[in-house]
């Protein structure tokens, strides 16, 4: 790993830490939320950006983390950290099962199959409403929102916990793609057939990538439940699968910084738009079409193309 890469990513982490002390309350809160959601985007990027698995169903993994954490707290009084681990494990397990089935397909079929599995998961949340509180959602009990005696509903604690999670995910993904395993994932994206004929069991590698991706996405969902205290089926709906795709496309698929940059941009864009209209998804639609047409590389991808060739 070049020193320059490491400096850049550590720099971002440091800046986000400093912002904790200087940001006004509103932006401080927004940024905490962005960091948590950026972890979701980082998870999605491992599948889509690095491995080339274009999933349209990642909301089910985010939802698995959200509900795994929230329901463990609601029904069984599990404390925050174990509940977070339960949520993450739920996402990994779901990704494993979905991967076993969906990875028998590829390309367009893979997109539709993941979309459908995610829809089944969403409908299941509604159908088993007696247990999951379906459409209304529920509030995570305070007992499960306390970490080492600190309340996660406190603004400052929330920001710092989100920062720790985000830093871990960012540096973790940087480390991962620098590993031989990460290189193989890129090889799968670039040319799966070639990778297979170099002796790699491509199905197993893709499954592993999807499980890691699902686990990171679920960690984001679980953290969201713990930090913001609300769990609802909307988060597992199609829209949230599309959001992950949008954030990653906007920031730059297959770049370590892209997911954060895309999430940051989109959050503030929608934040501005909701002041003008209820139809903020219009912005998402226009952005999707515009990106595929004019900037398929995304923001960080364009930077890499122009200025920084070996940016990870």
């Amino acid at each position, binding site marked *: 790993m070049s020193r320059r890469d490491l400096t850049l990513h550590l720099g971002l982490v440091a800046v986000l830490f400093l912002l904790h002390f200087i940001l006004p309350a509103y932006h401080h809160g927004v940024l905490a939320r962005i960091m948590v959601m950026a972890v979701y985007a980082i998870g999605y990027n491992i599948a889509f950006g690095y491995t080339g698995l274009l999933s349209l169903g990642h909301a089910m993994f985010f939802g698995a983390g959200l509900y795994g954490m929230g329901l463990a707290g609601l029904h069984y009084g599990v404390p925050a950290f174990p509940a977070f681990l339960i949520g993450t494990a739920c996402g990994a397990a779901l990704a494993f099962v979905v991967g076993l089935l969906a990875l028998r397909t590829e390309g*367009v079929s893979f*997109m539709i199959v993941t979309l459908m599995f995610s*829809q*089944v998961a969403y409908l299941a949340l509604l*159908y088993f409403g007696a247990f999951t509180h379906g459409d209304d959602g529920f509030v995570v009990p305070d007992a499960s929102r306390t970490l080492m005696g600190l309340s996660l509903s406190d603004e400052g604690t929330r920001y710092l916990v989100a920062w720790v999670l985000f830093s871990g995910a960012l540096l973790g993904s940087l480390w991962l793609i620098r590993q031989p395993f990460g290189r193989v994932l890129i090889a799968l994206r670039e040319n799966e057939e070639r990778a297979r004929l170099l002796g790699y069991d491509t199905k197993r590698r893709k499954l592993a990538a999807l499980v890691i991706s699902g686990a990171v996405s679920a960690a984001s969902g679980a953290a969201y439940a713990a930090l913001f205290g609300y769990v609802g089926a909307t988060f597992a709906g199609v829209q949230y699968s599309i959001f992950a795709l949008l954030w990653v*496309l906007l920031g730059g698929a297959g770049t370590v910084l892209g997911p954060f940059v895309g999430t940051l941009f989109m959050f503030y864009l929608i934040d501005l738009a909701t002041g003008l209209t209820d*139809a903020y998804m219009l912005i998402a*639609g226009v952005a999707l*079409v515009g990106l*595929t047409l004019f900037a398929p590389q995304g923001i960080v991808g364009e930077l890499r193309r122009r200025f920084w060739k070996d940016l990870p």
Partner: protein
Amino acid sequence: MDFGPYLMLAMLEGAVLAAVLALMASGLSLVFGVMRVVNVAHGEFYMLGAVVAWAVTTLLGAGPVLNFVAALIVAPLVVGAMAAAADMVILKRLNYDPERTIVATIGLLYILQQLTLMTYGADARPVVAPFNERIALPWVEWGDKGLSFYFPWGLSTTSYKLFVIAAAVVLIAALKLFMAKTRAGLIMRATQGDREMATAFGVPVERVYALVFGGGAALAALAGVLIVPIQQAHYLMGGDALLLSFIVVIIGGLGSLSGTIVAAILIGLSDGIISVFFTPTLAKMIATLAVALVLVFRPQGLFGGTSR
């Protein structure tokens, strides 16, 4: 009502759904068959068909029959033209790359849906059916006095629902004839799957694609016009319709028109019957899961051949 007449009622409702679904799904299937792209915005064209029908009847303000006839003509033309424009402005520039096209049509989906919300609003609005006589249906039963013939209470349909079924049959037959017998149909089939070959033989591929994409959307819009007297126009109505069309097209075998029609009848009828026994959520859940598994284990569809 006894179980027998009740089941028949469910099947009649199912037949209406099957008719509308067959129409809509053949649009999706046509686009996939010729252009090899999946149009995720297809449900929104269906929704726009219904909304345009409402707009036409409201603006025209003539009698129900004239209003409806106008809607039946205007909606597919307007929606088809929009889709053809989208094809030329967006999809053509993506070179019809399958994955990027899906992402772009997802964007299109939200654009159309949200623009409708901003202009038409969030209310569901009805369109008056051109005719709507209630038709009581007879039922036969083997009783103690031999074969008896009676009209059970509640077993009825409307003339409009029968019209929807008939209209769908006629339109789909026309579409099949068009594809099989006309020069334009031949060109479309020639373009199927092999763009370079078709170009080499002088087929104006770009124009054919715009027409096919527009035509597919027009079929969805027609389905939307037909359904709106029964179901009301709403800006979110495209989602479920899209899901059902996907189900139909996948089960029928991607790109196969005949398979699509068989699957539409199967899904439409079984949806009517399933909804008798299950809650809608459970029914949707099982159907979606089943179709995902079909794609995983039998990608050529249940009725398709071996070609992919």
